[in-house]
Each structure stands twice: as C-alpha cells, then as structure tokens.
C-alpha cells in the first residue's frame, strides 16, 4: 500500500475526529452548565445579584454635596470670611484609596491632558458641564484615566480603585463638570423586563445587538454592554458616551431606564433551554455547525457505507 494511500486513509480518520473534538469543545464551554440553573424563574433569579457602585447618597445632584465625606472639609479654614465656600475647594480634600486627596489624584491622572482647571487642552476636551454621570462613567468603565493606549471601549473594569473614583467624581464635578446629568439611580429589580425588551429593541439593539453583545457601525465597533453595571448603563443613556445618542430624562424616564436594565440583566443570563447556544452568534454560526459537524458526519457515514471509485 502506497504512502499516499495510507495518508489518504489517515485523513479520512482525521476529519471526523476533529469534528467530534470540536463538538466536544462546545459542550465543555462553561456557559453550558448554567442552562439548567436558570430554569425555574428567569426574571427573579437572574436579576438578583447585581453589584452596584451606586450608593443612595451619590444620587443627589452636584449643586450641594453635603454628604458625610465632605464633612472633612470643615476642618480646613474657609477661603475667606464672608465669601461662600467654593465647592471645588471643599471637594479637593476628599481622601481616596491610599490617603491621597482628590486634588492630588486630579493632578496626577487628569490635569496633564484636561488642564489644571479642567477646561481642556489640545490633548483632551474640556470637561465643563459634562456632569457627574460622565465623570463617573469614564472612570468606572476604565476609559479614563487614559494612559497611552488609544481610546478603549471595553472591558468595563475601572483602572482606579473605587474610593479614588468617588473622590474624583465629587471633585471634578465641583471643579468644572457641574451642570450636566447627575449619576442616576438604576434599579433593575423595579423594572418591567418585557417593557425593557420593547424599549431595548427599539432604541438600543440596532447597535448593541438584542443580547447586548455589541455590534458594528460602518466605521467603528460598538461595545458589548453585558458587563456594564446598572449605574453605568443609566449614565451611558444620559451622557451618550463616544458617538452614542443621548437620552434625556423626558425621553426615557427613570422607570424606563430601570426596565431597560431589567431586560439587560435578564439577557446577560439567557435561558438557553435548547442546549449549547454557540456563543449566541445566530444563524451563521448555526450554518457553520451544519457544515462542519452535521455535513461532515453525513460524509463520513456515507464514505463508510459506500465504496471508493
């Protein structure tokens, strides 16, 4: 038997082995295990454990920050008697994670590009009036502080520690960003999933996909939003990060935002009742399975049943 023939025979074995291995690989994907767990009542069970970066105190507007944190400023001498306290001065000494004050954080991480006053330089835009929601969104999603890499839209993990972010939120808002949207309170548990689905497919899914897994504009990718926290989602709707349109409070009420987030929380843990979801890539992935698994299987069986020549 010639070498060529032997290799041919081997190839016959390899193709199905690879196909079976590929199928096995899918079945091993960790997400598969969750299908059974999500069964009983998808709404309540999946939306329960949501990490929230929002505390009730943070939701007040930036005009007056009389939260316990800012009490620390009382120990410092006021600028001059008879003159109202500058809120920026008050917020400057809020202490972040490593005992560093907000003002120092600002100077370390932000001022180089946005300018000492935050009014922008040729390297970065002005932050005047962008609102606390924008500051918090940029920091908590890790878009800021930007080191040297080009703008990144994923993942949603912050670069700075949470305490630093809270301090900077307050300081930057008081310094320059006041006047824009405040950090919204988002509570997906109070939202109606079905209503949220309608709103999401009407306003969001064209870019972010029905599952929130992202998409593509003709000139740039659209990030997946399945990792976003409810607060980030609410902030993004209000401020319209990057090229995303803004949604004002009269356009989408806070209960509608709750509904959208309730849907998204549900979409994060889809009820994949039918087996392996093939990464939720839709019909083309299903087509790939047909060609690479089912059709190869049919060919293999036919080859075994029939003869050559």
């Amino acid at each position: 038997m010639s070498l060529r023939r032997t290799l041919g025979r081997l190839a016959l074995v390899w193709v199905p082995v690879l196909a079976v291995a590929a199928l096995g690989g899918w079945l091993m994907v960790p997400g598969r295990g969750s299908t059974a767990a999500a069964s009983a009542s998808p709404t309540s069970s999946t939306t329960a454990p949501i990490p929230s970066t929002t505390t009730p105190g943070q939701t007040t507007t930036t005009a007056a920050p009389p939260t316990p944190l800012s009490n620390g400023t009382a120990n410092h001498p006021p600028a001059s008697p008879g003159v109202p306290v500058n809120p920026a001065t008050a917020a400057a000494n809020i202490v972040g994670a490593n005992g560093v004050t907000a003002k120092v954080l600002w100077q370390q991480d932000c001022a180089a590009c946005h300018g000492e006053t935050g009014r922008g330089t040729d390297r970065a835009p002005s932050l005047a009036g962008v609102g606390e929601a924008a500051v918090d969104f940029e920091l908590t999603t890790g878009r800021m502080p930007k080191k040297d890499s080009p703008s990144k839209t994923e993942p949603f993990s912050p670069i700075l520690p949470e305490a630093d972010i809270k301090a900077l939120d307050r300081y930057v808002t008081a310094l320059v960003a006041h006047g824009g949207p405040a950090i919204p309170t988002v509570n997906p548990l109070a939202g109606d999933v079905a209503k949220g689905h309608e709103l999401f497919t009407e306003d969001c899914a064209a870019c972010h996909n029905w599952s929130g897994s992202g998409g593509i504009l003709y000139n740039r990718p659209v990030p997946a939003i399945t990792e976003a926290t409810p607060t980030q989602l609410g902030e993004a709707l209000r401020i319209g990060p990057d090229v995303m349109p803004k949604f004002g409070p009269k356009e989408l009420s806070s209960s509608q935002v709750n509904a959208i987030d309730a849907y998204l929380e549900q979409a994060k843990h889809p009820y994949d009742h039918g087996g392996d979801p093939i990464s939720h890539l839709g019909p083309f992935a299903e087509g790939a399975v047909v060609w690479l698994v089912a059709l190869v299987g049919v060919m293999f069986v036919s080859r075994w049943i029939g003869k050559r020549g």
Partner: protein
Amino acid sequence: MTEESDKQRRAGTAVLVCLVGAAVLGCGMAVVYWTTGNIGLEGGLLGACFLLLAVGLVLWAHHLLPEGPFVEEYPDLQSPAAEEASVLATLHRGGVGRRRVLLGSIGAVAVTIGASLLSTIRSFGPSANSLAHTPWRQKRVLVDSDGKPIKMGDLPVGAALSVYPQGFIEAPMVACMLIHLPPHANHPLPGRRAWAPGDYICYSKVCSHAGCPVNLYDRVSMDLECPCHQSTFDVTRGAHPVFGPAAGSLAQLPLSVDPDGTLRSAGDFSEPPGPVFWHWSKGVAGG
C-alpha cells in the same frame, strides 16, 4: 472456511450488541420523556439510539450480506423508429390533428379560462393601493412608542428617538427617527428650510434600500445607519446616503411646533418612505 464463518459469527455478535444497545438507548429516551423531560438527554439518547442502529445495519451490510459485483444492463432508452412512427400515427387517430380551427378554439378557451382564473388573485391584495400616503399627512402629533407626545426641549442635543404619529403607532411605514442636532449643523435641502424647527429633524426610519429600521445614530458624525445592510445616511444633508448599498435618501418628515411646544408633522413625507418601486415617483403600487 471456518475462518470465514468465525468472522461472520463475530460480525453477527457485533450487530446484536449494536441493536440491543440501540434498544436500551431508545428505552432510555422514553424514560427521560416520562420523567424529567430534559431535551438534551432526550435528543442525545434518541440520537445515539439511531446512530447505534446505523452502525449495526452497516456492519450487517458489510459483513453478512452479499456484496457484488453484480452487473445489470443499462436500458436502451431510444425506441426503434417504427415504434416512434406508430405512436405518432396513433396521435393522429380520428383526424384529431387536422381540425386546426377546433384545436385553436380549445386553446383560446383554455387561455380565457386561465386568464379569468388568474384575475382572481386580485382578492389577495387589499382594497386600497397607495404606498405613498401615511397617517402623518393629517398633521399628527409626534409620540414615542408609549404614546407620550414629544415637546420641544424633551431631547438633549445629540439625542435620537423613535417617534410615531399619535394614534397610529403600529401602522405600516410610519416609524421615524427624531433627532436633535447641534445648532447650525443642519444644511437643509432647498425648500426644506422650515422643516426642522429648533434643530429637531425627522426622517423615516424605514431604510430606502430594503426597508429595515434605520436606527443606529452616530451623534458625532451625525449619521443614521441601517443594521441590516450598513447603508449610512448623512442626517445634516437631507439623509443623503454616504455609504452602503442604498441609492436614495431617507424620506424627510416636515415638522411644526404647536404654541405649547408639542411637535407635530407639517404634512406627509417628502417622498414615499422605504424602498423604491416601479411607480415610486407616482406613489402608487400599480398602474
């Protein structure tokens, strides 16, 4: 040939094992169905049952059944000329083929019947035939999908919202994108200067290419994009297509403002919304 029969006996055993296995798996499927109803187990067990049955049958065919080569003649498809001639003669029996006028009349009757039956497909269509007019014509208030009217000032600059004519949210071809442009961004087409009061501008959400909802809005480049085929329209210049397979602009909806700030259409779309068709410029479905 004891070796041969040994081989056959072994094959027989293998076939038996496969068939018994298949039967067990089939029973397993029934048990799962009546107990948990887990479709993964059901499909897996039934699938494995069939595969094992297939293996058994192939082993049976390969080892226990006669394998040729058997030979068979291909049929002679073309008949002898004499037979052909006799068939043709039979067709002319009774002089059927000579009565040209009668045959022609039968053809004419058939055509008539066909045409009259075909005309009943008209029943499949609706009674009205306008693709051009939408409820927007009656100067309706713009509402969101919950039916809430939209007022000037509801949308921040850079916002985009799907809007519908009040009372006709689910009607065909009415969905629009209302966009609040930054000041001075709009370059209106001639005659459309008054169509975008307060930089609120409104275009049909039905793509001029294949009719998908155009609702990707890029607030920096101020483009609307279609998620189906990536056609991209420049909102500031009459939604003129700048990329993708669409050849025409999105239809624009003229807006007006009520004294209390409520937005309202000032008339129907600038052109029939959605994909174009043969009588598009006339705005009707058929001649």
